[in-house]
């Protein structure tokens, strides 16, 4: 049961991560903070799952990464969307919206 929830979260997580990178490269911590800030911490995302999602998408070629030095002189791994990642975002967003619409319609018929 727990596994299935994780899977569900992860699929969703991929979209959130891709979306967060649509404004430019970010490091993992930055993405986590963006998600928390944007959703007003309504979504509880475990950081471990976030990083797994990042590395998986990197492996699939949706993301690429580079190491930069940050303002306070530490090196951090920055992720950037590839063209393939951008297409994935479009596709996934559309699928997700249709799904949400459908669920919403059912809920409204009560």
């Amino acid at each position, binding site marked *: 049961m727990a596994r299935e929830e994780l899977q569900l979260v992860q699929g969703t997580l991929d979209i959130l991560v891709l979306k967060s990178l649509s404004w*430019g*490269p*970010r*490091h*993992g*911590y930055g993405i*986590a*903070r963006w998600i928390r800030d944007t959703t007003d911490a309504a979504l509880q995302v*475990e*950081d*471990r*799952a976030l*990083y*797994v999602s990042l*590395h*998986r998408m*990197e*492996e699939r070629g949706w993301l*690429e*990464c*580079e*190491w*930069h*030095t*940050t*303002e306070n002189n*530490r*090196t*951090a*791994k*920055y992720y*950037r969307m590839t063209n393939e990642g951008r297409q994935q975002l479009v596709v996934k967003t559309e699928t997700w919206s249709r799904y949400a619409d459908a669920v919403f319609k059912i809920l409204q018929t009560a």
Partner: protein
Amino acid sequence: MTDQRGARRWFRLPSSLSRVHREVSDEIAFHLDNRVGELIEAGMGPDEARAQASREFGDVGAACEDLESIGRRRMRRERRANWWSDFRRDLAFGLRAALRAPLFSLLAILTLALGIGANAAIFAVAKPVLLDPLPYPAQERLVRVYARSPEGGERWGLTAGMADEIMRAQRGFTAMALFAAHPSEIVVGDAGGARVANGTWVQPGYFDVLGVAPTIGRTFTAEDFPGGPLEDLPSVVTVLTHAAWQRYAAGARDIVGRDIVVNGIPRTVLGVLPRGFVGPSGDVDFYFPLNIAPTLADPVRVRRSHWLGMIGRMAGSTTLASAQQETAAVAAQLAQRHPEDFKDIGTQVMPLREAMVGDTRGPLVVLLASAALVLLIACSNLSGALLSRVLARRKEFGVRSAIGAGRGRLARQLLTESLVLAGAGGIAGVALAALLLAFARDIAATTLPYFADVALDGGTMLAIMLLTLLTGLLVGALPALAIARGDPQRALGDSTRGSSESPRSRRLRGALVAGQIALCLSLVVSAGLLGRSLWNMSTAPSGFDSSGLVTATVKLPYASYSTPQAVVAYHEAVSERLRALPGVDAVASATELPRGVGNQNSFVIDGRPWGAGESDPWALWTNVSDEYFALLRIPLRAGRPFDARDHADAPPTIIINEGMARRFWPAGDALGARIRIGPDREAPLHEVIGIVGDVRNDAARTEAQAMTYASIRQSPEGVLSFLVRGRSDPQGLLPVVERAVAAHDPGAPLRRAAMLDAVLSEGLADRRLPVMLMVGFGALALLLASVGVYAMFASMATARQHEFGVRMALGANRAAIAALVLRQGGIWMATGLAAGCAGVVAIAWLLRDLLFEVDPFDPATLLAAMLLLTMSGVLASLPPVRRATRVDPAVALHAQ
């Protein structure tokens, strides 16, 4: 965009596993540190903040594992992809390089094809003999038990007495069975169309020991009326091999229960053996049940007739050594009880495989080694040539190096190129091997063990593929090493002037040529030694004159020729018929043709002490007609030949050879002596009436073996060979004789009609094949080594062309230039010859058993081989040396 200082290239992959680990740790540490900082800023205590951040993150250790395993997987996949894309690039590049120099590539492929083809063909022949298991279940548990003695050798037949004792006493075998050690010739069919086939007698358990079940019907059981090979107690049942079923019963499904006439007696077929089954008894068509009870009851034959073979299946805990011990203990006991029969007779337990492979192992190992040497020469030859090509392609490599190819990459590319050549050579080699085998199959069939099936099967193909791969690596190793250790960048710089070989690569090429000459010398010497052995064997005086003799051998069916009178009558009638043929000068007959008389009998000299713990001496045995010695021109040394006085009812007489007379009657009183033939102490005494010249019975033995001749009238036998000398055209006489013999009694099938010379030459076939192959290998090696020598001198001359031009401009004459080149190359040739002498020592050791009347270190052969090699070396060096001396100084200097 965020900060770009210190940016690495996008796409950069972690290059090692430790790096994967470090990057994951850094990334997670960065995340945690930032979160903790943020929480502290929001007013939390440091410890609390750390705990909170950690809780939000989840299991850090597990996260590290997850991320690292993703990273590792990525890295491996990427590396593999890189390797393949590099390989494909190199392959394409190698193919282009090969096509750019088509002549060179063609020669290289041809060289490798010869080398690989020779190896493939020899391997295909050797594999079934040396490697493949015998076609019986759990064949490694099967052994053959022999008797051994100083007289009978290590593979002597067992006596029924000893075999019986062993079977009673043994504990280490799950099953054992006896069979007649040698198959017998039998006559199949009746007067309507009789044919000669091979049959043997086996105990009912024989097929169970081997683990072979019949495809149709059944094999023997203890109830089947069993007989013995002497036909005094004929068996009335038989089991057929698959081949015999096809040949004599046209593969009829309802064969079981039907009768087939063998030796004139109808026998009921019980079953048919699986296709391709061959037993330890040899190439046999018919099996009959064996009963040794009559032999056991015979007071003489029981302990004196060595005619049985024995196989056994070892129990799980039995080893070869313990089986040997067990049987030897039985033999030792028997020797105590019956010293007059069993003194010095032990046992020899041998894996069945080894027993069936026989004497072919030695020549095959020699041939395998020789083929490998030829391939090694081909490899080193090609390696040298590729080395020169690397030097010629220095610019190309320099450029590639300049645009970022590492030395390792360049070396790998060279290896790929040589693998391309080897692959092409391997394919051509397989085609060549298939061709060779098609020719060799028939010749090889007579010399290989009868179970060996020569073919380019899966195992052989796999071996060839491995060999090809190894060849490619071997050929490419030296050039690749040269490029990996050299400095390709410098080549780009200095290539504006000259292309003089570096001293090191010159030394390398020299050493390669020296190695080729050394290997070649070993091969040529072995070919020479084997050739001389064969020559000695075929030219050594045989003791008789076989030229122009026609022979025809018949096998008389036992049923119609069961009495001596019937056989003698047949013999006289056919001899008369042959003598009456036009063009026939003389006719003789014998039970066995000269060379290859297989029958031996023990004998006792009348009046000399009997037994006394000594075993009886042995002599070869054959029965001949009155005219035999005159016809074969075997000289009579003393006494008289057989004549009408030696008729069936007269006192038995015998003629012996000189060697026997000298050995057993050193005082010269052989004539008139009387001997008893065979193990039976009550056997009649034969008087020695004549002494004849020695006949070399075994081509591979020099000393004359003791030989006895009896009159065919006094001891007739069921196999008869007629010898006919014509006035002219012996070849034309052959079919005439054949027809005449066949016409006399169609029920007595003609086994063979041929020229005696042809029969004798066949006896040497198994000796001739290795010699022919070795000579072929030697010639191939000589050719390859000569090409190597030529190439060495040629590249040397080209490399120093500029220098020679300068020297000539300064006044050096042609002789001085030639001397310069010859000295440089000559040193390597001399080194090779010296090293080759060392190789000859190894070869001589391998060959020692195959030689006849030649010393393994025969100086004449060695000298001749060295001379041959030197001559071909000089010949090969002439064109390049000539070219070096013809350099026009002006041209050479301008060419730069």
